[in-house]
């Protein structure tokens, strides 16, 4: 890779259409814009957090076409036509919280709260995947979401509490 090529003038932006929290958005983005930066900087959806920005902490977890992913490692331009659900889209504005959100409140499953949107989106994605039954399963399958405050015991309790209600919501 020679530097002359690397330093060539920036390639043109591209258009993508994404359905974000049920709303179709037509966006013009540079190829190197991550889904995380698109959400936070272009759309003011700042519920999704930037933690490590390297796919190691899980704070940026969103549901992309119903699957949980690290949005910091997704290039937005590659996801034309996809559906994205962020923490803002789990429950309609003004309506009741999503059962997983309510369980996090009820179980005091956070301290500083920075990892919480990622934890909640990840937990909803995990329940949709259908491989978690026990607390051990939850601990293993949520290991991609770090909580530096160490609220893990209450996070596991919240997820166990919300599991049935979340499942019921997925099936409708």
């Amino acid at each position, binding site marked *: 890779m020679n530097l002359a090529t690397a330093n060539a003038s920036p390639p043109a932006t591209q258009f993508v259409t994404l359905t974000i929290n049920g709303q179709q958005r037509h966006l013009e983005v540079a190829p190197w814009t991550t889904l995380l930066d698109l959400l936070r900087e272009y759309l003011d959806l700042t519920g999704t957090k930037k933690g490590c920005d390297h796919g190691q902490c899980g704070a940026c977890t969103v549901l992309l076409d119903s699957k949980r*992913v690290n949005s910091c490692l997704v290039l937005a331009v590659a996801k034309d036509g996809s559906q994205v659900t962020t923490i803002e889209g789990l429950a309609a504005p003004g309506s009741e919280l999503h059962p997983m959100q309510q369980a996090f409140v009820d179980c005091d499953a956070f301290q500083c709260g920075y990892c919480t949107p990622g934890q909640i989106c990840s937990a909803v994605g995990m329940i949709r995947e259908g491989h978690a039954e026990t607390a051990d399963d939850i601990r293993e399958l949520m290991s991609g979401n770090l909580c530096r405050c160490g609220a893990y015991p209450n996070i596991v309790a919240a997820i166990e509490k919300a599991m049935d209600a979340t499942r019921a919501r997925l099936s409708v």
Partner: protein
Amino acid sequence: MINFAYTRATGIADAIKEKVEANGGGQFLAGGTNLVDLLKENVARPARLIDINRLPLAAVEPMSGGGLRLGALVTNADTAYHPEVQRRYPMLSRAILAGASAQLRNMATNGGNLLQRTRCYYFYDVATPCNKRQPGSGCPAIRGQNRVCGVLGTSAQCIATHPSDMCVALAALEAVVRVSGPQGERSIPIAEFHTLPSNTPHIENTLSPDELITSIDLPESPYAAHSVYTKVRDRASYAFALVSVAAGLELDGDTIKSTRLALGGVAHKPWRLPAAEALLTGKPATKESFLPVAEALFAGAQGYEHNAFKIELGKRAVVRALTLAAKGTAAIHDVNGQTADA
């Protein structure tokens, strides 16, 4: 992150054509879990990303002759939870689930897993020399922080490891990598896919520059009933292997008919030694039989300041993996790839 162009390939031939046209400045984009990170670190500096995610390579299909074909774009998660993979190749399912996090496994693809780069700290840190990143610049790992580095097949230029769990199981299963390129299609046995560092640590596999991985083919396996993936790491989940072992036994009663063993975390490629496996043929499945195999696998191993422990740890992990495999796959696994204590 440098600025780069982005194009979306419409077919396999189109993807290869675009790669050729990029003249060494192009990289294929699949799941992006490693590549996008390397872009952010300025380790990867492509002029153009060629997005292959819309290519028709996302199926798991039975092969005529009895094997199973894993499309290059099937995600690691979909592969690990595929009923046929779980039933016929439980070692592979467990290896995948022992790696990364659920989010990363939802994104990462099978082809990309083969091509992931080492996690050696110096490779990632562009402020330091690294023969793999910048040939001829030196290897600080040899005298530096080398806990994550290898002890087998290392060279004076590079002691990095291949970080994959999946590939360790693929090595034990003798998978075949199918590729497509400007010269047509070819198949590469997994043992010949990854390379040792020698004097060219920047070369990590035998893919030609413009070839695209299209599938990973698994031959029929007699090891499903007695296979295990044992991974030893610094924390219980979401960490790269210090040492890992994929082990499969084919048993006739208590007598071993054949064995497959591959090691992860110890070399620039999944480490396999068929001559060591052959030591077990006709032997009873006991610790006494397993110990010489562990010794043979680590013959010639060279430890460095912070990783010499891997030699003894690795030998013990081999014995443990074989002991667990002898008990039977069903006895030792839960659905999430954890190994119950023996």
